[in-house]
Structure formats: structure tokens, C-alpha cells
């Protein structure tokens, strides 16, 4: 038994060595003029650089979201640095991949906070991952901004957690209202992804709102992300003879749903949310998508100079039209930078206070006001698909 105990402690010390090679945990660097917890939000290594942290899924099935977001953030930083940085310091971002796994996200967040001593944490797209990161940021008093986690629970974690997008209920509400009032739809059905929190959240709200507005949700079917055959569900829905089908899923699935619905002779108007937003959607769904409507954060057709400026720069750098995740990543970074500029001393609490004060900030994905729940209050746009293109049709205000 003694050997075992020894082995256990040997192991513990090994881990200590493994993780803490750079900065021993037991002896954190003495904080310089930092009223925050010792060793938690200490100063960046070089005085002329402010380090930001980002956690995103850069590999795995949701890689496309993570990469768009990352590019948006990088663009924002490049712009800010070109304009002289913040308080005379350059900005840098350190990005860790979380493979779309909450435990990896938590681990990466903790590493950014404790090891890399970041001033501000950005991420994640998926709400589950943001929910895993948020307590780490909250505990260490490092402000965190999620660009596009729409689950209401994310910012409920604590007063250091912010977001620059609207929340699930709003998107479900927008589409229910548009379907009922503009499209005059009376009978609709829902096809949702039970593996995705986002999809379930939107579906719930749509169901509730659509009924409240006098419509009827005749059927709800579900699938699991990764499935490619939706014919069973669509056949079941075909019997119901609905006018509209709300599919709040991601583009991978939606493209196939549209194609197979057409194949089965199902004539409905498909509706969705920002998860549809990808060039890939048209490759997968093609003409079957024509006439569908989606809610989204922004429209690339928006003529405002700010949006067009962003699109031009993004195209220059990455050779593609930015999707809404890129726009939100950009906005999240811009809001963060703005808050740092306004903050008194670049410590967690002061940045936090500045973030809470953001009102009418002109983001590319709508004008952002942070409310008392630390959520962004901003309008949504409704887009209609025609000939493999999203066309702007309406703006719905909160």
C-alpha cells in the first residue's frame, strides 16, 4: 500500500510538472497593481501587447463555424491594430481548438485564463461549449463575450458573461411572426434536431409563438445530427398537409431535407434560422430550397457602408463572402476592443463594467445594445432564398 501511495503522489507531482512548467501554480507571479485574484488574471508577459483568448471548434463537424468566427475576430484585431491598438498597446489573440467538446472548451478556457493570462475571452459558437467555459471566466473575473451562442442560459452564468447576438427565443419568435403575419400561414410543422440544443431551442419557441398567434403546429418530427435520410419523417409530415415546415437545423441537414422533401412530392415553404447560413447550403439543397425563408443576424446585401466595408475587407483577406458567424465574431471582438478602450485600467472588472455600458454600438450584424441580462438587443433580418442566394426581405425588431 505504501508503494501505491507513493506512486499516487509521484503521479500528482508529474502532473504538476506537466502543466505548470511555465508558471508554478503554488507561487504565482506577484500581480502588479491587480486587485484581482492572484495568479488568475495577471499581467500579460509583454507590456506592449494585450492578449485576448479565443476558444472555438476548429476541427470536427462544426469546424466551419469555428473557422468563420476566428477569421472575423482576426479581421477585427487587424483593423484595431492598424488604427493604433488599445491604449497604445497591440492586440493579439490566442486560439485553442475544443473539437466541439465541452470538456475541451472548459480546459482550453482555463488554460487561456490561468496560463496565458488573457484580458478577455471570446467564444464559443455552440451554447454547450460556452456554458462549459463561462464558469471558468466568471470565477477568474475575466470577461467573456460569446459571438453567437444563442441559448439564454449562457449569460445567466454570471455578470462577466456577455454576448453580441440575440437569443434563441428571439429567432423563433421572428420566424413564427413572419410566417403567421406576412406569409399568412395557418398550419405548419417542425422538423428539429434532437442532438442540437440550438435546434431544440428554436423549435420550442416557434411552436409556442406560432400557436399564440393563431396558427396550428400540426406535427413535430425530429432527427439526430449526422442522419442523412429524412424520408421517414417527411413521409409522416406529408400526411399532415401543412403549408410550412420549420427546420431550425444546420445547413448540412437542411439542404438534404429540402432535396428529399421535393423528391417525395412535399410542397411546403421551408423556414429556418441562422444555422442555414452557409454557401454549402446551396450546394446541398440546390433548387429545392427556392422560396424558403430564414431569420438571420445580418444580410450581406445590407447597403450600409459599414457592412460593405467589412465585406470588402473580409473578401480581400479570405477570398469569401463572410457569413453571419464571421460577422458576429467580428462584432464580438469589436465590442470587446471598444470596452477595453473605455475601461479604466484593462483589468477584468473594469472591462466588465465598460462592456455592460455598451449601447447602440454599430456592429456589422446590427446595432448592439447590451441589456441588464448582458444579452445583445438587436433586430433580426428575414431572408428569402432564390436561385441559390439569400435575398433580404424584412427586418424584425425586438
Amino acid at each position, binding site marked *: *500500500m505504501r*508503494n*501505491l*501511495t507513493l*506512486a*499516487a*503522489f509521484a*503521479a*500528482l507531482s508529474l*502532473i*504538476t510538472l*506537466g*502543466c*505548470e*512548467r*511555465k508558471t508554478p*501554480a*503554488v507561487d*504565482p507571479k506577484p500581480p502588479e497593481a491587480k486587485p484581482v485574484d*492572484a*495568479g*488568475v488574471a495577471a499581467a500579460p508577459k509583454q507590456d506592449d501587447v494585450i492578449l485576448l483568448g479565443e476558444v472555438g471548434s*476548429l*476541427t470536427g463537424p462544426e469546424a466551419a463555424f469555428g473557422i468563420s468566427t476566428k477569421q472575423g475576430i482576426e479581421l477585427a484585431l487587424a483593423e484595431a491594430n492598424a488604427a493604433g491598438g488599445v491604449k497604445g498597446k497591440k492586440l493579439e489573440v490566442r*486560439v*485553442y*481548438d475544443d*473539437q466541439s*467538446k*465541452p*470538456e*475541451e472548451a*472548459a*480546459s*482550453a478556457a*482555463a*488554460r487561456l*485564463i*490561468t*496560463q496565458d493570462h488573457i484580458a478577455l475571452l471570446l467564444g464559443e459558437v455552440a451554447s*454547450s461549449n460556452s*456554458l*462549459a467555459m*463561462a*464558469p*471558468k471566466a466568471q*470565477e477568474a473575473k475575466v470577461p467573456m463575450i460569446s459571438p453567437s451562442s444563442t*441559448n439564454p*442560459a449562457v449569460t*445567466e*452564468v454570471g455578470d462577466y458573461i456577455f454576448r453580441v447576438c440575440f437569443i434563441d427565443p428571439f429567432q423563433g419568435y421572428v420566424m413564427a411572426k413572419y410566417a403567421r403575419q406576412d406569409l399568412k400561414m395557418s398550419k405548419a410543422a417542425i422538423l428539429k*434536431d*434532437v*442532438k*442540437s*440544443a440550438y*435546434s*431544440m*431551442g428554436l423549435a420550442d419557441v416557434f411552436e409556442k409563438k406560432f400557436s399564440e398567434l393563431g396558427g396550428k403546429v400540426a406535427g413535430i418530427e425530429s432527427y*439526430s445530427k449526422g442522419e442523412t435520410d429524412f424520408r421517414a419523417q417527411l413521409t409522416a409530415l406529408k400526411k399532415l398537409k401543412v403549408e410550412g415546415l420549420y427546420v431550425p437545423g444546420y445547413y448540412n441537414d437542411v439542404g438534404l431535407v429540402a432535396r428529399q422533401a421535393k423528391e417525395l412530392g412535399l410542397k411546403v415553404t421551408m423556414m429556418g434560422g441562422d444555422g442555414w447560413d452557409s454557401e454549402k447550403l446551396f450546394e446541398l439543397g440546390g433548387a429545392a430550397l427556392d422560396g424558403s425563408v430564414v431569420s438571420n443576424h445580418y444580410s450581406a446585401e445590407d447597403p450600409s457602408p459599414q457592412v460593405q466595408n467589412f465585406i470588402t475587407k473580409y473578401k480581400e483577406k479570405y477570398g469569401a463572402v463572410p457569413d453571419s458567424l464571421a460577422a458576429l465574431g467580428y462584432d464580438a471582438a469589436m465590442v470587446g476592443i471598444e470596452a477595453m478602450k473605455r475601461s479604466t485600467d484593462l483589468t477584468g472588472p473594469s472591462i466588465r463594467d465598460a462592456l455592460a455600458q455598451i449601447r447602440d454600438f454599430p456592429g456589422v450584424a446590427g446595432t448592439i445594445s447590451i441589456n441588464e441580462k448582458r444579452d445583445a438587443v438587436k433586430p433580426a433580418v428575414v431572408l428569402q432564398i432564390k436561385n441559390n442566394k439569400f435575398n433580404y426581405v424584412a427586418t424584425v425588431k425586438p
Partner: protein
Amino acid sequence: MLRTTSTLVVAGAACALASWLFASSQFFALQASLVGVAVILAVSLNLINGITGQFSIGHGGFMGVGAYVGVVTSSLLTQFQLLPGAPQVVSDQLVLLIALATGGLAAGTMGFLVGLPSLRLKGDYLAIVTLGFGEIIRVAIQNTKEIASDELKLVQAQGIGAELAYRVTHLGRATGLSQIPQLTSFGMVWFWVFVVVMVTRRILGSPHGRALLAIREDEVAAEAMGVDTTGYKVRAFAVASFFAGVAGALFAHFQAIITPAQFDFVKSTEIVVFIVAGGLGSTSGAVVSAMALTLLPEVMRSLFGGFNVEQIRKPLFGLLLVVIMLTRPQGLFGTHELWDLGKRKKRPA
């Protein structure tokens, strides 16, 4: 008995001390906890796959059962003052212990129920049944609802029975259960590492361990020698599932959020990789390789900073399995143990 108690007390004290010493580094605590949980999972799965020679690839599912049951328990209990007058830390740890026990017992019972029919089947069938079990658990959780805080308040007013019913049917589906009381310290995790290693060692040193090994070596002969093979397999399965459940509950209480996707087939396979790399049947091997492979991504992050290396981790894991099986099927340690190094010398060649 006395020896056991005193050993546990000493180990507990040591772990508590370590927790206190390293409390300042969130990152260290998180890594140490993750590693500890991986070790518990590996050591317990080794009891089934390594020592008893069966093949389960559903350990992640049992971990999930423990995690969810544990969280429901602790969420219910944290509202109550269990020990009036005691400091918060003490009552928190008591809640945690109860949560771990219920999580472990639930997983153990589940293991018993799954094992009873399926352990009569041959190894590869067991593999597929355990895998299927994990999938069913995932689907079941996805079919629950999300907790709404206003609803919860209403239900709480109706008493603990109503709240229990509410919480059991509201496991957060794909979003996951969040706002979990963060009660686990890595000391607690490592205390359980100690317990699981001790329990496996004690079982191995007893007639029961020999019976399990006999089943691994030759099931027909073991049965002919009066070993109730199904019974032993089910018991080993139940004990291993218990610890998987405890690991899950520990995990949940430092993870902030648990989602069904965290306990899927990939997780189960990861645990299999741990024990195969360490040497099927070797507890020390399971410990060492679980530690090494869990820290690997962090070490890679340290060395390379970016993500490019990380994405090859999973294919690398797969390749590692193949290479180990082809070149050193006994794994790192074979069936040997660190603590036997001294003893083995006297064995004649």
C-alpha cells in the same frame, strides 16, 4: 478493517491537503481532475476488459448515468442545510459524497441489469450490447426537457418529491445540464482514484480476483471448477459500472455542464485505448496511460500552441491501437504491476 480505515483516512487527508495547496490554480485543478477521472474510468474498465477478459465499449454510458443521477441528487440536496451549524465546505462535501454514492449506485445497478442478460453472450456480442446501451442512454436523455428556472421555482414550492420528478424528466436534452453545483475538488477526485485502485487490488488479491482471472484465461475450465462465470462477470461489471458512475458524478461536479454527447461511443473508445495502451489487465498500466493520454492534448498545446497538431489526435489514437496490437499486444505493462516489481524477481525462469 482497521487498516483499511486508517489507510483511507490518511489518503483522504493527503488529498485534502493537496487540494488546499494547489487551490490557487484553476487550470492545474481542472487538469488534475480530468486526469483523475480518466484514471478511475480506465482502472474500472480494466476490471471488465483486462481482468475478466470481457469486452465492453459502453463505459462512457455508465459514466453518463452516474453523472446525471449525481447531478440530480446534488441539485436537490444543496438547498438543504444537511448539517446545521457545520461550515459550508463540510456540508458541500457531504452533498458531493451522497451524489457520488447515488450516481455510482445507479450506474452499478444499471451495469447489473445490462450485464445479467448480456454477459451470458460471448465477448463480441457483449461489446455491441454495451455500445447499444450507451446509445439508448443518449437517446433517452435527448428526449427529456430543459430546466426552465421559473418552472423550477414553482415546482420547488410543491416539495421535494415534485422537484425530484421534475428534475428527472428535465435533464437538459442536447443542451446539457448546466448550473451544476461545482463541488468537486481535485483532491476528492484523487481520493477516489486511490479507492478504485485499492479496491481493484484487494479484489485481485482475493479468491474473487482469481476467479475473474480464471474466466479470462479459460471460461469453460473456470466453470468446470465451480466458478459461477456469469455471476462473477455480472459482479465485476456492476463494480466497474459503479466506479464509472462515480467518475461521471465527479466529472459533472467540476465540469459546469454535462451533455449526452460527452458520454458517447467516442468516450468509451477512448477509455478502451487507455487500458489497451497500458496493458490489458494491468492496473498500473491503466493508471499511467490514462494520465499520459489525457495530458497529451495539453502537452501538445504547450508545445505547439496551435490547433494543427491537435486534429490528428483522434486518427493518431486509432493508429496507436493498431500499432500496439501488432507490435506489443500486451501494452505498456503487459499484465504486470508497478508494485510487483520487487516480488517478481524470485520467480524462476
